[in-house]
């Protein structure tokens, strides 16, 4: 099977409200940025794939609008997932592995500011039994947080430390939306939105876009001296029946650990698509990352572009490995309530 490398990644500055910018105006700068970094154009791209969600901005076919940001003459090989763009990366990787393309452009975009994300996310749930009760995204996440706390898998202190660390790390991330320092006192004084989650435990409403270029073994070195290889990638989904899941663990993360043989790898860096603070210590323990620098970008707690934050975790890991000349990175993308669908990516600098 062909090996596939990440060769470029660009992220729009995360905005609280990108009102002035439509999806085209968000996507185009990041696509141009990643092309310019690599000295390439759409003509060098064999496959293009995007991730987005119509309901975020309330427009059917948001991705069709977004495609206007891309050069499509002559017509391009292109597809779209109504998922986080991390899954657009997955699809693109399959295209390269099968030999249908040597290179791929992946982009994701999301504007959460136009709508009410809480009620929109209710519509991800079972439409007969659950969404008519309009559970919001924070309350759903809180159900898992409560179980993790009760079973002492994580602690309140770990959640607080996660928030403080995320804000501190954000200072080094020029694209982060929230960079204000949070003290222990400030955290403790914050009100509970859905217990046990405070406002600080939740990600900000964010608008943005990101783009990535990946390439086959044959092409990667034409584009960059620093390809970062997708050494392993695995994803799987858990039951839609929230009440039948064991929320104290994650069988899909366990799948990835086994399938990617992660046990004996010493990771230098990790970026996790953890939208809520409790998910960070939970996943770090599951993935054996307690001593691995995690979410150096600040992660979703300092900027959470829906449909893009999973791709961003992969992109930020790529950037860390290039910048620090380190060897092994692990990235995680997620979808659905209480980490229902998880992807784990093992990135490696050396071939």
């Amino acid at each position, binding site marked *: *099977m062909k090996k596939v490398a990440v060769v470029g990644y660009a992220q729009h500055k995360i905005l609280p409200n990108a009102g002035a910018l439509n999806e085209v105006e968000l996507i185009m700068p990041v696509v141009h940025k990643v092309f310019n970094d690599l000295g390439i154009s759409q003509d060098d791209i064999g496959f*293009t794939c995007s991730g987005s*969600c*119509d*309901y975020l901005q309330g*427009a*059917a*076919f948001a*991705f*069709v*609008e977004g*495609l*206007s940001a891309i050069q*499509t*003459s*002559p*017509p*391009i*090989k*292109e*597809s*779209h*997932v*109504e*998922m986080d763009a991390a*899954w657009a990366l*997955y*699809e693109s*990787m*399959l*295209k390269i*592995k*099968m*030999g*249908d393309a040597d290179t791929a452009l992946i982009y994701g975009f999301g504007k959460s500011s136009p709508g009410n994300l809480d009620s*929109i*996310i209710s*519509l*991800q*749930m*079972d*439409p*007969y039994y659950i*969404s008519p009760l309009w559970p919001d995204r924070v309350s759903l996440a809180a159900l898992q947080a409560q179980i993790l706390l009760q079973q002492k898998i994580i602690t309140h202190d770990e959640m607080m430390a996660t928030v403080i660390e995320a804000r501190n790390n954000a200072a080094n991330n020029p694209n982060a939306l929230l960079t204000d320092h949070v003290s222990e006192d400030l955290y403790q004084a914050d009100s509970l939105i859905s217990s046990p989650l405070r406002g600080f435990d939740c990600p900000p409403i964010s608008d943005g876009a990101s783009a990535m270029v990946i390439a086959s073994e044959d092409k990667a070195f034409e584009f960059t001296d620093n390809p970062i290889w997708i050494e392993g990638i*695995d*994803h*799987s*989904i*858990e*039951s*839609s*029946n929230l009440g039948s899941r064991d929320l104290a663990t994650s*069988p*899909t993360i366990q*799948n990835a650990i086994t399938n990617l043989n992660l046990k004996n790898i010493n990771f230098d860096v990790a970026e996790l698509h953890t939208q809520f603070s409790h998910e960070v210590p939970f996943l770090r323990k599951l993935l054996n990352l307690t001593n691995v620098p995690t979410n150096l970008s600040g992660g979703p707690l300092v900027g959470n572009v829906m449909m893009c934050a999973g791709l961003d975790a992969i992109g930020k890991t790529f950037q860390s490995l290039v910048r620090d000349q380190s060897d092994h990175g692990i990235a995680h993308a997620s*979808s*659905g*309530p209480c980490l*229902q*669908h998880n992807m784990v990516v093992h990135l490696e600098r050396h071939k």
Partner: protein
Amino acid sequence: MIQAGVIGVGQTNYDSKRRDVSMAGLVREAIDKAMLAADIEWDAVDAVVLGKAPDMFEGVIMPELYLADAIGAVGKPVLRVHTAGSVGGSTAVIAASHVCSGQFKTVLTVTFEKQSESNATWALSPRYPYSPHINAGAGGYFAPFIREYIRRYEPPEHIGWKVAAKDRQNALKNPLAHLQIPGIDEKMVSETPMLWEPLRYLESCPSSDGACAMVITSEDRVGSRNVAWIRGMAVRSEGTLSAGRDEVNPQGGIDCAKDIYQQAGIHNPRTEIDCAEIYVPFSWYEPMWLENLGFCDLGQGWKLTDEGVTALDGSLPVNMSGGVLSSNPIGASGMIRFGEAALQVMGLAEDHQVEDAKISMGHAYGGAAQFFAMWIVSSSKD
């Protein structure tokens, strides 16, 4: 590239309202049939690929999350594809890519729409601020392209009626088809009310509930099963409001067809392809796509239709199943084309079987005639 083939196709019956089932039940009905046809059990399924058109049709966001249990995906990778009307076709291509990449051996893919849950026109056309009241539905969007085709090549008016009657006559031989209109003929079509000139009521697709599933597997897992080998597959996209597009004969369709012919070693599609399932939601798209896909020269497509070449007993039967004009669960409509193409070369198309079909084509398009997905399947591997 790893060889892959379709070993099972499963379809629900299509109807305006499948009120007897939930969304999960609808999708599962197609899956159960596909797995039975493929003679596999759940443990053989390595990944699931789900496709459907906009989430607003059913008001369920990212429905792979809600459907994970029904589609048997728990513990497995699942991908959700959305490429507008072409989605059923692109979903099949992506499912096959899972196998051809070598990552997976056997993939279950399923597409659906339960249009009775909402009104398609509403779901696609909320009133947005600052936008004028011009929207006239899908027919209103495509009718001007059809009028331009007619202006260019001056075909007689009855061509559209002929396609509409032919596809519905074929539907009478497909018990799963939504529209079953006994005695349908050109005259009946021509007497139905005009909707969007030049399109009459019976020249337009219905709105349907339904699901279509397929099992695609790699060469080493086929065993002694009946198989439709995937000999070529491709997708192409054009920008929506892009200067210089020819909406009547889009370059994306031309390029996509050339790509799959080259992969399959087809030099003359008109003689080498035995039959085709082409995405024809409005009657005139049959001649338009025949030209776009290189079955004939520009301006000659309507003559193939007129001469009966595309009839079930013609030399290039098109839409043997009744096509989109007879069943249109939008998200599944493309995959039905791909699956019906496979059934033909597997010899499983029953009453609408084309005798001795060995090579067939599945085609889907979507958006503003800008998204294309196609494949060639064959009874033989090379």
